[in-house]
């Protein structure tokens, strides 16, 4: 009954149970992710008020328009991911593949915009370690970027598997769990964006 090539195979679990456990495992992992970034948010607040003028100076180097653009890009990618899960649930394979590829495209757009933000900073001699503001900035956005890359890898994997006809209304746990991860990447950015780009200096 269980889908070949997934974790469940070895256990011969009931597919519904396997599906639910798979999702629950992802939710538990996401809780640890929230705490990981939570520590960084706490560091952000501590240093923000401790070295306020560095935050005023540092955040004046960020362009809120770039941050807003990337926020919208990630929100759209979350939407296409949700539509991918929906398509899988309805056994609409072409739509599933199309939405996964769109999600990948928006993720790549996010990377390009990030590049346009980071590279001029490097050219201006601004690096992680330039001061505490930029250490926090590069650490939080960098760790987020790493999540984007990991998410892109899994979405790519889903697209390949979808192309082989793996997913349907009876078996879409993989897509849904990948979606959960991708939405978390979006949620982290929903918080990072205002903290870094909008209220970094207040």
């Amino acid at each position: 009954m269980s889908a070949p090539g997934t974790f469940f195979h070895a256990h011969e679990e009931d597919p519904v149970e396997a599906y639910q456990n798979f999702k629950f495992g992802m939710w538990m992992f996401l809780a640890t992710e929230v705490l990981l970034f939570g520590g960084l948010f706490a560091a952000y607040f501590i240093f923000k008020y401790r070295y306020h003028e560095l935050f005023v100076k540092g955040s004046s180097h960020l362009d809120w328009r770039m941050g807003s653009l990337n926020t919208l890009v990630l929100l759209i990618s979350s939407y296409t991911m949700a539509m991918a899960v929906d398509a899988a649930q309805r056994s609409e394979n072409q739509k599933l593949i199309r939405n996964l590829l769109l999600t990948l495209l928006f993720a790549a757009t996010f990377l390009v915009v990030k590049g346009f933000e980071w590279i001029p900073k490097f050219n201006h001699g601004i690096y992680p370690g330039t001061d505490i503001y930029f250490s926090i900035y590069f650490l939080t956005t960098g760790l987020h970027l790493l999540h984007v890359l990991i998410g892109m890898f899994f979405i790519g994997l889903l697209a390949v598997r979808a192309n082989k006809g793996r997913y349907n209304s009876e078996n879409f746990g993989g897509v849904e769990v990948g979606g959960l991860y991708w939405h978390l990447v979006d949620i982290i950015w929903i918080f990072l964006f205002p903290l870094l780009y909008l209220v970094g200096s207040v």
Partner: protein
Amino acid sequence: MSEHKMGHLQEPSTYLRILIYLFVLTIVTVAASKVHFGWEFLNVIVALVIAAFKASLVIRFFMHGKYENGETWAFIVYPIVLLVTLVGFLFLDYGFRPKDKYVVTPVAFDDQAHGEHGSSHNSTETHGEPTNDHAAAETPAETHGDSSDVANAEPAGESHAEAPAEAAANALPGDAAKGLEKAKILCIACHKVDGAGNELPGAPPFAETMANPEKTPEYLRKWLKNPAEVKPGTIMPNLGLSDSDIENLIAYLATIKN
């Protein structure tokens, strides 16, 4: 394996509706950040509240959290509770600590303190030794919490007594080329440097400042050392410049004058 147990179907239009809400909330976030609420923490709190609301939309609709069971919600709620507690107590500390107990440099809270707390700053700032060449003032990190470093601005009356030394003070030992280089890194976010960069509303163009005969090198030295000493409540931050950086910047600024 009824469909009921294998996840829930939502109307596809729901996803689009949520996306539109998220867009609108993003615009609201940006707009709210441009408003001055008086109490500056409010800007941060508003931003966080809107972000939390956006996140809840993503969780409930995009992530199908609406349909999840209690165990899953326990794992959604517990990290959030921990986080809100952590950040909340940080705010309680920073937001309600008496202003003169801050361990930060004056500039940080002059924005909000303005008139009412200005006097308490002065009392802590001026009783230190009135030396200008305090080597420890190299980096901003080192100036924090050490009240003697903040004291490099002399008590107001003293600067007039220096008339004979003024000529020497106005000599420019700095390297203008190095100053330009620094300015391109440090000032460009708020002042145009060499025609490039941003002009923050309220930040005067360098040419305008240098056309003003009152802005002597001696004045600029004090200004760049710590703008808030000269003008409490100014937006220009203390950039933590070293003495040699300051000399180079002043030499560069002097080239603009001509």
